[in-house]
């Protein structure tokens, strides 16, 4: 068994995964980067020309961009924090055995297991009922109250945010439960003898033990924060008036035909996510236990 042969085999086995990701991502991402440097548009009557960093320069001077960016950061940070807090709470609820634990566990698993592609449709039409149903008056009043206080479209945005939190907290709760299960119970018992304060125990024992799980959960929460929003945007053809970077880019590209600025816009978030990811990698990379 030569090491060289093993390495060749490794690359061979790695190939299908890389091929799949390259097919679905490499060209599209390349296209997006290239397009962000041009003025590509289906409504142009002149050939597409290379404009360098013009799209980015124009964005940085556009107040609409900064508003969308601020919304995006606030939305992502807020939903991720809430999902994490709720998820941690749900996981801790399930941490100790009690009667009926299996049932509560299943209940907490449900929001994530219930396919979001269809639940988002149901969620949206439930909160904004299109026809006279028994609950449409109640929901209508909620909508007018929220829209009246925060501006038109706010209720739709709030409802998507709630959906994202509802589903995300379920995923994170179950994910963190997997982390808690890995901790030997004696460790918690020792900690209970050491310190009377549950709050201190939580920060000194539970959080450090769950660190890799928490780090992975944070990242997934950040990246999935926008998926549901995109779903609803597609579904309702632009009823959301609160622009975040994603919906703003979609609007520019599909309704405005300005693919250049739209590409630039949707790429602006990637470097930040990448930076976050590299900080988090340190926490959830499996440690080297033995040498290869």
């Amino acid at each position, binding site marked *: *068994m030569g090491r060289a042969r*093993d*390495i060749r*085999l490794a690359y*061979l*086995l*790695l190939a*299908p995964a890389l091929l799949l990701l390259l*097919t*679905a*991502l490499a060209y599209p991402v390349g*296209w*997006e980067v290239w397009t962000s440097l041009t003025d590509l548009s289906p409504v142009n009557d002149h050939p597409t020309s290379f404009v360098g960093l013009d799209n980015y320069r124009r964005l940085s001077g556009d107040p609409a961009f900064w508003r969308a960016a601020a919304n995006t950061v606030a939305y992502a940070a807020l939903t991720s924090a809430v999902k994490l807090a709720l998820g941690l709470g749900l996981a801790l609820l399930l941490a100790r055995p*009690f009667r*009926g634990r299996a049932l509560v*566990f*299943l209940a*907490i*698993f449900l929001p994530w*297991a219930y*396919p*979001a*592609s*269809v*639940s988002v*449709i*149901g969620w949206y*039409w*439930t909160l904004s*009922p299109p026809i*006279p*149903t*028994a*609950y449409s008056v109640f929901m209508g009043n909620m909508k007018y109250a929220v829209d009246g206080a925060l501006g038109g479209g706010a209720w739709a945005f709030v409802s998507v945010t709630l959906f994202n939190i*509802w589903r995300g907290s379920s995923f994170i709760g*179950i*994910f963190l439960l*997997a*982390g808690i*299960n*890995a901790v030997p119970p004696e460790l918690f018992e020792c900690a209970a003898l050491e310190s009377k304060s549950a709050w201190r125990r939580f920060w000194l024992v539970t959080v450090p033990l769950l660190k*890799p*799980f928490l780090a992975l959960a944070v*990242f997934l929460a950040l990246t999935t924060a926008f*998926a549901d929003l*995109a*779903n609803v945007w*597609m*579904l309702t053809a632009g009823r959301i008036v609160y622009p975040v970077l*994603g*919906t703003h880019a979609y609007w520019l*590209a599909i309704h405005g035909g300005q*693919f250049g600025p739209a590409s630039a816009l*949707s790429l602006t978030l*990637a470097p930040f996510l990448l930076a976050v*990811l590299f900080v988090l990698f340190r926490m959830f990379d*499996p440690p080297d*236990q*033995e040498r*290869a």
Partner: protein
Amino acid sequence: MSPRPWWRKLGHGSLLLVATVYCVFPIYFMLVQSLKTAQEDVFGNPLIVLNPTFENFEELFQQSGESHGYVGRALRRSYPVLDWLENTIIVFAGSVAVTLVVSLLAGYALGRLRPPGFRWWRRLIFASYVVPHTILFVPLYQVIVSLNLENNLLALLVVYPTLAVPFCVWIFSAYFQNLPRAVEESALVEGASRLTAFFRILLPMSKPVVVAAGIFALGTIASDFTLASILLLDAHNKTIPAGLATMEVALDELLAVAGINLMAIPVVLICAVFARGYVRGLTAAMVEGA
């Protein structure tokens, strides 16, 4: 330790109640609506159903292309739901299978064979999650066209796995990396090939991780709606989520909610059956290494 005082128990119990209601209520609500008659939907109590009926589900499967009555003056069409159901099963089963095979191979390569820089390979694959999906479907559609997969279910079998593969590769490779070398060493010393050792020893051991990866893949794939609507244009060629989005919800609200449940119930049942395995697999992958 002394038994917990009654007020602690009460607190714990009510927290459990709140958590359960919080998680289940929206699902309960959608289930209840789907069992209602139009009469009850408009005039009944929204929280309960007094005369449950399956007529919305039956109506879903009516012959496609035929009209089925009016709301006011608007004609209600029926939809090829049976086709959608079949497509959904093919696409979901196929995508989960592709995801698992591809991720197992890559996970084994990175966690067990450890080529130079295997950590960076793994990080690179995982980093594909930062790619913004906003308008990515425009070039993605070009790729699908150039592969001749327009309006073809196979297109989703290429695209869907990419949503789950990075996470699955991560947990498989972490699991295999944490497993002690000794596990398959003796078999290899006795002359078994890597292939035999993988199928006889490693794969059976990693069953919980396979379950975890499979459930994650199913949950992720079942949450997509955008890609399916964009890549499958023909009315007969849609999956259930993409198809439901073409419905006139204003006219067919009860039908749509029945469609939602039609897809959700099987997925939820599969997830529920494997729920414990899912948690065990995640634990095994992230920390134990068995």
